[in-house]
């Protein structure tokens, strides 16, 4: 199996090993025996809806939370037992992190660079990330995109081998999002292994060499984006608006149908080969006209829906 960069996953070295990782709050497993490894030099996406357990998973990888079960190794180090050495090789940018309003960009970078034995020159990093003109700007006065770039900068100033980026483009406008994607790709090209946490399908499909799909705390799939889509290739997706009321359960009763969702009167039906014939036959029997009918090939969104039974979140649903 090859990734976007041609890495052979059966031979590449694992830089992060996660085995049966578990975290419980109030008796409920929010991360439930998750197992995967991240290979050196890849962009590894952890994809799932909000509340799936993605951030908790990477927090345990970074040593911010103690697992209740299983193990994490970052280049052989236990992040809980050896936090200092782990943080020298693992840079993290986590969601729900905010800098102090009254700190300036240059001060923040100078401060964080002092925490590491061999940091990247922070002025050089500031320039590479397009923040030179904001060196004396207070954090409270930065735009959303500038704040994200500062977050990336503080995650990278220690010259880490691995960067964990958690929901980095949430809340950004489309241009800022695409600029950030280019930044991430440039990082990977410099040899930094990236763990990317996201709930945007497009982002995972565009950037990731491999994708781990997490839902309700469990790992439901792990493959390249193409591999995940291929597993649904035999699946078909139909979207239409029925001209007269149609009970979705009538569609679900068809053997070829796997899922039916209703969004404001538009039905989305996924299923296996023969879906189109089965559905159109049913509509004909019920004398229901299908308006705005579309039959699509599977995308990562469809793979997600097939794996989890739920619609993926998009920029529109996020707003």
């Amino acid at each position, binding site marked *: 199996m090859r990734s976007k960069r041609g890495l052979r996953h059966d031979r590449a070295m694992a830089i992060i090993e996660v085995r049966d990782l578990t975290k419980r709050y109030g008796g409920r497993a929010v991360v439930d025996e998750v197992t995967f490894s991240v290979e050196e030099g890849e962009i590894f996406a952890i994809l799932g809806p909000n509340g799936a357990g993605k951030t908790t998973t990477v927090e345990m990888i970074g040593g911010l939370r103690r697992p209740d079960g299983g193990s994490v190794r970052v280049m052989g180090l236990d992040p809980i037992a050896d936090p200092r050495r782990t943080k020298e090789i693992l840079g993290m940018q986590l969601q729900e992190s905010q800098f102090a309003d*009254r700190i300036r960009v240059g001060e923040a970078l100078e401060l964080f660079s*002092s*925490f590491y034995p061999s940091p990247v020159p922070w002025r050089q990093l500031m320039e590479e990330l397009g923040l030179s003109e904001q060196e004396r700007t207070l954090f409270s006065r930065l735009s959303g995109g500038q704040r994200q770039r500062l977050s990336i900068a503080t995650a990278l100033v220690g010259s880490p081998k691995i960067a964990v980026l958690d929901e980095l483009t949430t809340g950004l406008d489309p241009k800022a999002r695409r600029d950030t994607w280019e930044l991430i790709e440039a990082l990977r090209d410099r040899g930094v292994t990236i763990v990317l946490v996201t709930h945007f399908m497009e982002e995972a499909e565009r950037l990731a060499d491999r994708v781990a799909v997490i839902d309700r705390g469990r790992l439901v799939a792990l493959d390249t984006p193409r591999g995940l889509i291929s597993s649904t290739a035999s699946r078909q997706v139909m979207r239409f608006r029925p001209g007269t009321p149609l009970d979705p359960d009538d569609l679900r009763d068809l053997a070829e149908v796997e899922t039916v969702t209703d969004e404001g009167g538009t039905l989305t039906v996924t299923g296996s080969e023969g879906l189109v014939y089965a559905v159109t036959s049913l509509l004909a029997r019920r004398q229901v006209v299908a308006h705005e009918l579309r039959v699509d090939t599977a995308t990562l969104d469809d793979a997600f829906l097939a794996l989890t039974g739920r619609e993926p979140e998009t920029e529109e649903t996020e707003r």
Partner: protein
Amino acid sequence: MRAMWLEIRDELVGILREPTALFFSVLMPVGFFTFFVAMFGEAWENAGTAMIVPFGTFGVLAVVLMNPGIGMADAHQRGWLRVKRVSGIPLWMTIAAKVIASIPYAVAVLAAITASAVFVGDMRFDAGEVAVVFAVLVLGVLPFAFFSVAIGSRVGANAAAAILNAILMPSAIVSGLWFPYEMLPEAIARIGSVLPTYHLARLAMAPVDGGAWLGHLLVLAATAAVGAMVATMAYRSARL
């Protein structure tokens, strides 16, 4: 060392860029001091002198017990502590910087109370005595900053303010910081005598009245050791 200095600089710069907290933190104890001296100052000689040690103790306690903890709670709530925790900074450095950065608050409140004593009361100290009392108070109050940081690591800013106030006011009263210790009922005075706040006041008074100081110093040293442990454990286990 450089990282420690930059961490302290970050805290101090925060105070300078948002001086409102400093101003109002100093205002309360100075206000109380001025009020008490004005109300009761004529009742005895050298009222400014007599009150500066207990009110100076209350003043440094008020600012050092409240501000590091509220600052920590605010940093916790907004996610700033989260950014620091995933970086390479050692836990102890963040805590130590917060404690050391409380010194300007202590110095400011003592300067303001002294100025008030000069103008409102009858200030009779010599410079050497003042310097020693100030040094004792500024250093002796630092153990309390650890407890403040511990509380701020675990709760939000509003809750931190309420909890720290609930600790400060009763401690100050039973330690004889508002009313002369000798005037307190025996049962209350006995409670006060075991509190670190009482020992801080006695240690600060020792250069003035020549009283014993070693026992009080040992209590504060033990308070510092316990406080540092509690702050470290609280911050380490905080859910950021």
